[in-house]
């Protein structure tokens, strides 16, 4: 019969099919990998700037000021004649504590660590006080907070003159 189909491939055809198959496979894999690679360049990059000017010292009332908390993760605290910038990262496992004005303390919602207004831990599992950031007055007399420089109480760094402003 003339139109009887051949049921096997010859060598040349076989390699032809093989080449097409592998090329498609390689292209698909390459495309997927490209997609994965694309993920390393996010559309939106959340990288808040590490330093900011925070107005005049006279802008702040006594106590804890939350105006920079959402933008920079910093509380500006005026307490006993000094002004300092307190980090809002819990030293236990890095949650964000809340300032409870009624009880005059920072309280972490994750495992219940509590801190005094100074940032010193006193309840719950937090092993050390909240960190303070570098805070200085710039040439215009405004507050400048630099989050790249950290002062830790347990290392005795809170005495450093850059860690607070006397008001």
């Amino acid at each position: 019969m003339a139109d009887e189909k051949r049921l096997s491939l010859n060598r040349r055809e076989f390699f032809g099919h093989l080449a097409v198959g592998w090329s498609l496979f390689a292209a698909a894999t390459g495309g997927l990998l490209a997609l994965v690679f694309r993920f390393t360049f996010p559309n939106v990059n959340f990288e808040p700037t590490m330093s900011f000017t925070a107005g005049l010292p006279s802008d702040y009332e006594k106590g804890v000021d939350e105006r920079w908390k959402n933008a920079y993760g910093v509380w500006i605290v005026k307490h006993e004649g000094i002004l300092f910038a307190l980090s809002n990262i819990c030293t236990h496992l890095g949650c964000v504590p809340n300032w409870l004005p009624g009880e005059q303390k920072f309280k972490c919602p994750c495992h219940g660590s509590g801190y005094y207004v100074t940032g010193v831990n006193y309840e719950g599992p937090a092993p050390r006080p909240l960190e303070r950031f570098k805070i200085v007055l710039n040439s215009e007399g405004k507050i400048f907070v630099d989050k790249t420089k950290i002062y830790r109480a347990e290392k005795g760094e809170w005495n450093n003159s850059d860690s607070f402003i006397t008001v």
Partner: protein
Amino acid sequence: MRELINKLSDPIFSFPGAMLLYLALLRYYRIFGSKKFAKIALVVILGLVAYFFADPNFFLIITTPDNIPISILFVLVSFFTWLTFHKAAENDKRIEQGLCPIEGTPENREKVWTWPNLVYTELFTIIAGTTFLIVWAILFKAPLEEPANPTWAPNPAKAPWYFLGLQEMLVYFDPWMAGVILPGLIVVGLLAIPFMDTNPKGNGYYTFQERKVAISFFLFGWLVLWLYLILIGTFLRGPNWVFFGPFEYWDLHKVVAENNVNLSEYFWIKGLGVSMPKNILLREIIGIIVTALYFVVGLPVVTKLWGKAFLKSMGQIRYYIFMFLVFSMVSLPIKMFLRWLFQLKYIIAMPEFELNL
């Protein structure tokens, strides 16, 4: 009455309570495993559930979609624990009479084909499971929340339900301990069980009598530590991770006086009335000694009192690895009690090196 239950569910009472219940369960497992007990318990529990559900605060918490798996978990675990002890009690009785366990009787030794016996069961399980999940997804909402914000945490911030035990552990430990070392030890310990357990008994049949130690230690870790902590973490921890009794309203402003103190402070400031030494090692010396004593003296003492037979049957290496794991496990409740009784924060506190015990 509700006040009383609120009070009693505070871990300082309920944890020893859970431990006593557990010991009673092991001691009287034959009663616990009887059908009569199951029936009475079911009636009592249903009554209790009705009583608890009548309270609006409790109802709110128990019907939160996130918490429903925990309720299911507790129903299932109770049932299977009962089932195990039921079968174990039956077999133990038979073994005492010199008979073979039920699983070993001729009619139970008969073999069946995978197809259709197993495959059918599996098929039905798959269908039932899928249906269950679909119904679940329709009934309970899991809405998206607002976009993630790194400077804000929900209050209370809760882990997924299966990690709430770990989160509860974190209340008592440094993140390195409760987040890395203890979970690591749990995993390693579970992996090590087949290598440490040299007891050939209980293979293919239920028994308690013949595997007392293995079952008791495992169930202690599972029921009393893991599940109890999940229970506390899910139902009894409210805003700011403060403890709330089952009938209490989750008040954001509940004030709990707590003032945790390190052992070193207890020793130097409150005990000796001097200021803390500058040298870190000297400062923490008491904690270090206590911890060392726990292992160095505790181990031989325990071995002397209870461990001799095991030391012989397991061999030194197995025995000491086993004991190390047990001691680590037991250190968790010990630390919890120290926190409740003495407001102890850390036994060894070296925040300078991120090392706290």
